């Protein structure tokens, strides 16, 4: 769980969505905080699908599953099983 969150934060930092020194809480909104927009979310989705070898069904593309680190990590765990 923590590993997945770290991976996502590393991705966001490596791709300059956020600064190296900034901190992102597990339940902070990615969209409302201006970290990522709809085009960026598509990129993040592609990264997650490839990195964890999962397909994300479209009905899981909700704010609950995609707008926070906690939501994303939970979704990945659910889909990896």
């Amino acid at each position, binding site marked *: 769980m923590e590993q997945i969150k770290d991976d996502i934060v590393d991705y966001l930092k490596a*791709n*300059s*969505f956020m600064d190296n020194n900034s901190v992102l809480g597990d339940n902070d909104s990615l*969209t*409302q*905080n*201006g970290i*990522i*927009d*709809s*085009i*960026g*979310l*598509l990129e993040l989705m592609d990264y997650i699908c490839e990195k964890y070898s999962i397909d994300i069904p*479209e*009905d*899981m*593309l*909700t*704010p609950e599953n*995609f*707008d926070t680190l906690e939501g994303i990590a939970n979704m990945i765990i659910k889909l990896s099983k």
Partner: protein
Amino acid sequence: MRIDAYISEYARKTPQNIALEEGTNSISYSCLDTDINAIASHLTDFNHCRFAILAESSMRYIKMLMAVYRSANIAIPLPIEFPRFSLEKLLDTAHINNILTTDTQYSRFGEGFFERFGTVIVLSRDTSVNILRKNIETERNNPELRLVLYTSGTTGTPKGVMLSDRNLVSNAESIIKVLRLTSSDKGALVISPHHAFGNSIINSHLASGGSVCVGNMNFIASVFNLIESDVSIFYGVPSTYRILLKYPDRFKRSFAKVRTAASAGGGMDKAIVKEMKELVPGLEILPMYGQTEATARLAYLPAEDVDEFVDTIGKAIPGVTLDVFDSDCNPAEINTTGELVAAGDNIMLGYLDDEIATEKKIINGWLHTGDLAQKLPNGYIRLLGRKDDLIKIGDHRVNPREIERNIEENTEVSKVFVVPVPHELMGTAISLLVIPSEGTEIENLFSFCRKNLPGYLCPREILFIDHLPLSENGKISNRSIIEEYKHVKANMQKVCS
């Protein structure tokens, strides 16, 4: 007549009818009218003053916009997808003393951002109004000015388009006719309401007594759920449809009960139309064309002609006259290329604080669109590119020279050239050709773009070159840059193989 007056009228005639929806919330015309009055009551002591609106796409945004109208002031919605840096640049030139914002945006941008404003009013989620400070200054504005919309996409110095009540009402009425909107229609607003297209969805549905369902394009499941909540008209730019078509089964299910899928902001290509028609045979597809300078809409392609004429913009909407002018400003013959011009009550008052640009754009009452065009024998109009260097990226009109200058001025590089490249979902994205200087780091360039440009302008790739991409006659143009890019790519493939 002002746009907000329609809301008052329906608040009297059909008070219980739903005006706006957002997620599980909805509001009737009667309640919407009351909320608008409550916000407007804090603005009535301003006399035709400029109010920036900084708000996410939401019912709150629409309430604030209508409250500025109702208090007879001037609304200036800020393009919220712009990075902070671009917004600050825009505000430096726009002379705006007052701002209305949401608590969400207030905490996101922080107190410092708002220091430049004499008046700061924050609206919380329950629509309670918090006046942080109020400083009423006398302003001199064009007496007809009601709304300033920023043209989408530009990154250097976006132009503010000045619109009047007459502009807004006439374009809303034209759109109502073209889309046959009635009080039973529900429109889906998932594109930005801060630009011309989104703004026109709000105006035309509220002026016909129907409703608007407010969302965004961030989360695909939410978009499909929104469409399935009995939306009768869906609006999107071509890339909106490309993204949704990635999920064909769900698309089919979601659009089964939708009457019309309307588009604007860029040409719909044959492939999108074909796929949509195959998935949902009964769906009416209605491509439209317009410009912010024309409030929103100028032309539409009647649904029955979509198969045959999807490569045209069709014909003028009611109330608009379109023509194609030659270089002497005389009407061009059929099948002869010239510049598309437009006249009608929807043509803007001019650009905000920029008379020189206005005089170049509106000549003898004709809006010169900058689009090269030909009239076809059946009266339809085909576009053939731009007179200037502007390009469409992710359905936003952008000036590549401004993007280049912005990157050159703010990073360690010698020269930057923007190349439009095909993109699966956006239609067109950009890559960069860069002549490096000492200290040029690709990572820093990417990082600058990500932070300071909207997502659709983040480059797909950055390639180094060592000479200027000149054409044979020694000039730099989009064409010569694209040629150079192809050349670089071809060489890279040779090296790889």
